[in-house]
């Protein structure tokens, strides 16, 4: 058959909604499809902001007068706070909205809420929602309304993407390992429900990491994940061998229900990162975790607090990375 794709789809869906026609970022919705150059540009920008931490005055006036709305339809303290700090350091005005289910329970739809906030002359929305694709729905809605002056940052949507976490993970890896093209990176745990894992895989493969491994029981690995460019391991001892970077994922308690896992104890025994298992990795391997950590469930305290762990530096880098994303989206940097 000469036609491989129906005509309507090639037109309708080919436009990447986070890119402007000139290829620059309009929104940050996912790391998928971003070029290596773009990723490094964001990381380089973050690096320039990181030095601010050492100054007495940690603020720059890049986004003075801009309004940023943190719209969190799902609970989060850590991510929301880092966005708030990032916005403050750029001198933007930040408004925190914990919407959860409250507005929708009053009968207001998601897009009604967005319309209301857009009417308050927002310049940027930072959005978290428990449904995959929600930031896309909002981006398309704003595009339809010709409100192209509003930028969206996806702060985590369902199981789809958490691009700023992915970027701060890349920042961390680059900081400690310098070169992506010689690395073995293992992502361990609940890949199925993890938007972080998906964003990390996209970024790692784009940045040239030759071997991305994912490790977990089959119940926690989504089907077809190998097609994202990852090698699948069920045995952690095999998967950890000689890796340079270990990214542990948080295991939600509710995974014990619904027959995904039998118990936390068994999970820790086979997939928890202990000093013994860590010894299988390269001697200078770093241990990362998006937080908050469950000690004794996915990671042993000796490892979480050990010298190979870079979990707390990740948090610091996260602020710089979010500053970089905000600055780039608003056109504040080249």
């Amino acid at each position, binding site marked *: 058959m000469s036609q491989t794709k129906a005509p*309507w789809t090639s037109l309708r869906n080919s436009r990447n909604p986070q890119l402007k026609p000139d290829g620059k970022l309009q929104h940050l919705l996912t790391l998928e499809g971003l070029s290596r150059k773009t990723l490094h540009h964001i990381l380089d920008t973050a690096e320039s902001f990181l030095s601010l931490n050492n100054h007495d005055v940690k603020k720059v006036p890049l986004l003075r007068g801009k309004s940023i709305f943190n719209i969190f339809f799902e609970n989060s303290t850590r991510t929301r706070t880092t966005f708030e700090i990032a916005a403050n350091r750029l001198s933007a005005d930040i408004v925190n909205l914990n919407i959860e289910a409250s507005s929708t329970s009053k009968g207001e739809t998601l897009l009604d809420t967005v319309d209301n906030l857009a009417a308050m002359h927002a310049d940027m929305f930072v959005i978290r929602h428990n449904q995959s694709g929600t930031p896309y729905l909002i981006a398309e809605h704003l595009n339809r309304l010709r409100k192209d002056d509003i930028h969206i940052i996806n702060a985590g949507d369902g199981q789809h993407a958490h691009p700023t976490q992915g970027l701060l993970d890349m920042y961390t890896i680059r900081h400690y390992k310098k070169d992506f093209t010689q690395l073995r990176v293992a992502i361990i745990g609940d890949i199925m429900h993890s938007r972080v894992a998906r964003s990390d895989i996209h970024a790692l493969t784009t940045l040239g990491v030759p071997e991305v491994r994912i490790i977990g029981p089959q119940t926690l690995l989504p089907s077809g994940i190998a097609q994202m460019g990852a090698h699948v391991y069920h045995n952690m001892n095999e998967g950890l061998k000689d890796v340079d970077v270990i990214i542990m994922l948080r295991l939600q308690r509710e995974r014990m229900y619904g027959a995904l896992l039998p118990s936390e104890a068994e999970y820790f025994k086979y997939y928890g990162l202990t000093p013994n298992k860590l010894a299988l990795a390269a001697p200078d391997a770093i241990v990362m975790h998006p937080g908050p950590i469950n000690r004794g469930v996915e990671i042993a305290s000796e490892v979480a607090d050990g010298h190979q762990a870079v979990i707390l530096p990740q948090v610091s880098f996260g602020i710089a990375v979010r500053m970089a994303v905000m600055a780039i989206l608003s056109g504040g940097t080249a």
Partner: protein
Amino acid sequence: MSQLLIQNARLVHASHTDITSSDIYIQDGLITGINQAPNNFYATQTIDAKNQLLSFALADLSTRLQEKGGNHRDLSQTVLTAAITGGVAHIAVPPDSRPILDEPNLIRLLTNKTHALNLAKVHPIGALTQGLKGEQLAELATLAENGCIAFGQADIPIKNTQVLQRALAYAASFNLPVWLRAQDANLGNGVIGSGAYASRLGLPSMSVSAETIALHTLFELLHSMGKDAPSVHICRISSARSAELIRTAKKEKLPITCDVNIHHLHLIDTDMGYFNSQFVFNPPLRQSTDRAALRAAVLDGTIDVVVSDHVAVDFDSKQLPVGQSQSGAVGVQWLLNLLVLFAQESRIDVALALAPAVSRAYAVLGLPTPIWQKGSLAHLVLFDDTAHQTLSKKYVGEHHNTPYLDYELPAQVSMTIINGRVSYQKLT
């Protein structure tokens, strides 16, 4: 008395389209002559159908007359009008309306109301179980007396296999056909077929086994009933593996027929692009290998019928994150166009693509086989298969939940004839 003459039309048969053109004479709702005028025929209307194809009108085995989501408004008039503008003369209505079609009065109300509109004929499918809850049997025999042509569960599976077994046995006692989706109640949740694309988007997905496990269960029940099994029409299969199972079951002479949603012959999971809720169907869109196998199964007769599975979704119910949006698309009015597209892409005669919505659909509905001969009912559609039309919002109307909005589809219906009368004529 209306006497209609259609001149110079190329006739669409069950397996081929005539190269030469014919004249068709119609009186009292029947075809009374082909290329030869019957005695005393004085045409009250003559239609020049030069360069057009004339087919028996389509039958769509799944069209809903009510809005889904929102206020569940009754859309009978709109949908039945849409049907005839697309050359569809018969529609089967699934029982999952509000209220659910499980009471004789509701069936009578539906048939009387829609009959009075004098548009496409409505064939109600009654609920197999009360309230579609899968617990108590509905009054199947009484419902059949009141006009139900078959019984089913729409998209709601029966969880309890014993209830399913008894429902099949009870229906068989009265020789009533059962129309069932094949979907395991526990595995059958998701807005996209399981696979790499679903995993990439992080969306709840439905595995192929949700369908095949239900098929195996059904086939084993039918096997165990032997000659006492009812005839079962399996609705909306979506995978290559299901097509293969049905092919085998038919070889084993199980009393089954089967249909597929037209959208599954054209679209696949990746067409959802960046979370486009217009591509959410139940069953969900799957991979290109599934689409290829479904197309092949339609062509070799494993899949008997192609349906539009028309459902008008209110605007707000699609303006939600994909995982929460209402599934389904409108399409009864473009079933013919999408079948012509299928013919063009598969490089087959239009007749072969239309048969699953004409003769093969009539057979499942229990209607006489439409044949070009004197005495056949004059439910006809005249169309130009070389024309195109764009599905603009204005053209589509209020419920524009379709993946094809603003795109061009081949073919254009110029006239639909129901019972020998022109029910729809395209304005020129």
